[in-house]
């Protein structure tokens, strides 16, 4: 007897709905086994992971802070990936967005005006978009592999930021420590409900980007163009769509959103430039994009869930002393099961006995 995956004639709407829940169930079971094996109470552990971060208002704020950059970047990447362009360098575009957006508050640090913030956000988007334009240009001009070029540009951006905050942009009153001046009030992204926690406008940007992108992909010609060119460049050309233009559109679009995420993070959550402005948001967002099945609305949910597991991992470290590494393993379980269960949408699992397999060879089903 063996287990076989059989392709469904059409994708299953039922499993498309069910698979996230099956995945959650499997994660809970696997997690419970893991926690029990470590001598921790599995109920306590699962509680800290999934419920505790949601029980307090401040923690909900933190959830939104953590989720906002992931969602913004992932929504941009979804358009890029759907058009069959593989932008792996969102981390670099995030950083360059933060850098370019910070030009105003660093060079004109005494300028207090309501224009400062919008200017920063726009410059951040431009910074991210232009930086994403490099792999697009290389791809269209020299047919360079965009996966490699966009990835390698991440390291360039990281080192550029590092050089800036240690050199020309270093805070002159900061004892030579590597960080820029703190931004003044007019350059800080406002908090939404300052009384209850620190969530800032970033999550609003994420929400707007999600809705607009969803609308574009669903109801606008541009969205159709993205899908057609993504599935078959040749078919797209017959329809009169240009793949060169699409490559630029996809990269500039995802770069701009990553840049917006970058400057929002720098301005809202950090308040200055420092050598490290991202705990690999740009890479984690790739996971979020696929977790949300490249659908903007799905991505919004996936971003929240992934952020929850980060917060939950911390909660579990404090409340039951779960080691950090185990928290990461558990997070890995969740991702693994979600992606694995998605297989059920296009395939069905069948147990094949030896006899049945033989008859099948004769054409029976």
């Amino acid at each position, binding site marked *: 007897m063996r287990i076989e995956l059989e392709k469904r004639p059409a994708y299953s709407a039922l499993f498309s709905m069910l698979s996230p829940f099956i995945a959650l169930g499997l994660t809970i079971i696997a997690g419970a086994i893991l926690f029990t094996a470590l001598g921790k109470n599995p109920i306590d552990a699962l509680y800290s992971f999934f419920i505790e971060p949601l029980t307090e208002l401040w923690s909900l704020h933190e959830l939104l802070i*953590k989720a906002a950059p992931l969602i913004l970047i992932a929504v941009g990447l979804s358009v890029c990936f759907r058009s069959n362009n593989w932008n792996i360098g969102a981390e670099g575009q995030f950083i360059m967005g933060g850098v370019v957006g910070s030009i105003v508050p660093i060079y004109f640090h005494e300028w207090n005006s309501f224009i400062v913030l919008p200017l920063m956000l726009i410059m951040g988007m431009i910074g991210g978009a232009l930086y994403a334009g490099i792999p697009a240009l290389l791809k269209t001009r020299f047919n360079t592999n965009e996966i490699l070029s966009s990835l390698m540009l991440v390291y360039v951006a990281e080192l550029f930021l590092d050089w800036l905050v240690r*050199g020309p942009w270093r805070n002159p009153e900061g*004892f*030579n420590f590597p960080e820029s001046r*703190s931004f003044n009030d007019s350059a800080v992204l406002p908090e939404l409900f300052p009384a209850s926690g620190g969530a800032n406008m970033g999550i609003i940007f994420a929400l707007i980007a999600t809705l607009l992108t969803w609308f574009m992909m669903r109801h606008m010609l541009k969205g159709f163009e993205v899908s057609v060119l993504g599935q078959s460049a040749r078919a797209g050309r017959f329809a009169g769509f240009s793949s060169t233009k699409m490559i630029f559109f996809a990269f500039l679009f995802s770069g701009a959103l990553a840049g917006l995420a970058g400057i929002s993070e720098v301005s809202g959550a*950090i308040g200055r430039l420092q*050598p*490290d402005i991202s705990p690999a948001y740009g890479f984690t967002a790739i996971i979020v994009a696929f977790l949300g099945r490249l659908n903007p609305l799905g991505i919004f949910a996936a971003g929240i869930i992934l952020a929850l597991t980060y917060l939950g991992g911390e909660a579990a470290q*404090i409340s039951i002393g779960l080691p*950090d590494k185990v928290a990461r393993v558990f997070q890995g379980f969740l991702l693994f099961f979600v992606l694995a269960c998605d297989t059920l949408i296009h395939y069905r699992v069948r147990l094949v006995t030896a006899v049945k397999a033989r008859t099948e060879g004769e054409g029976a089903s």
Partner: protein
Amino acid sequence: MKKLILALSTAAILSVASGAAQAATKVCFLYVGSKTDGGWTQAHDIGRQELENHFGDKVETVFLENVPEGPDAERAIERFARSGCELIFTTSFGFMEPTLKVAKKFPDVKFEHATGYKTEENVTSYNSRFYEGRYIQGKIAGMMSEAGVAGYIGSFPIPEVVQGINSFLLGAQSVNPDFAIKVVWVNSWFDAGKEADAAKALIDQGVDIITQHTDSTGPMQVASERGIKAFGQASDMIEAGPKTQLTAIVDTWGAYYIKRTQALMDGTWTTQSTWDGIVDGILQMAPYTNMPDDVKQAAMDTEAKIVSGELKPFTGPITKQDGTEWLKAGEVADDGTLLGLNFYIKGVDDQLPQ
């Protein structure tokens, strides 16, 4: 599903109740690395364990490890403050701003930040004069090195690291005035692979002693493969190089953590900015090994002089790398200058990244 939620909420109530029953002082630690990194964070974690052993049931300690500097750190510190921590130690330079931000919201909680410079009503800054240990290492290197050149693996060009490089060189030049240092920056506090590569590159350039201001045992292992000597960092790394390690600067934060927790319990905790040295027990030298007796004696004498205050590593005459005079004969550098140190002294074969 209902049953599960019920079970979960019961568990929650139970855990809250058991938490409230304890009257122990809750002391929390934020780590930038893994508590078993064999270097910086491990040294802090050993301090935390000493604190627990010292007070027994009277304290409860909690820690979070591998926390990135930035919003994640801020959230982690806030979580500490909200979960009933009374004293919070944040053990990386990059935690300074997040610590200050959270401290503002929780005026009744005490915070202690390591290796920074800002303080508040409820935020203390504490640091260790690592450079005192570096001077002793330099002295040993000056006597042991045949090439007259040591390799220095640097993390980030911040004042603390620059102090170490200069102090090491001053120690070495007190033996051999022509002693020089080659520096490689790895731009990381902990990256075993990069650190090992840096060690290989330095050895290929002819250095015969390696020292590091990074936290992994990678350089020690490379040095032992290549048959040269090296110094350990933050923790005693003798296991990584039984025939290689000359000594190590061992960070012994435990004494400080005990002192400050005691102050909190006694109600005498006040904000301060401390910079303790070997004499205060905040750092120690690992046993002097793999060296002739006369070198060992010289090292011990130097250590004794630093402890007694007779010897201050940064005492003139000292010339800057560019040839200008920094300190006149007999002049001692003040702490303010040292805390912002951003230039090399003569003999460093490197351009300080600016």
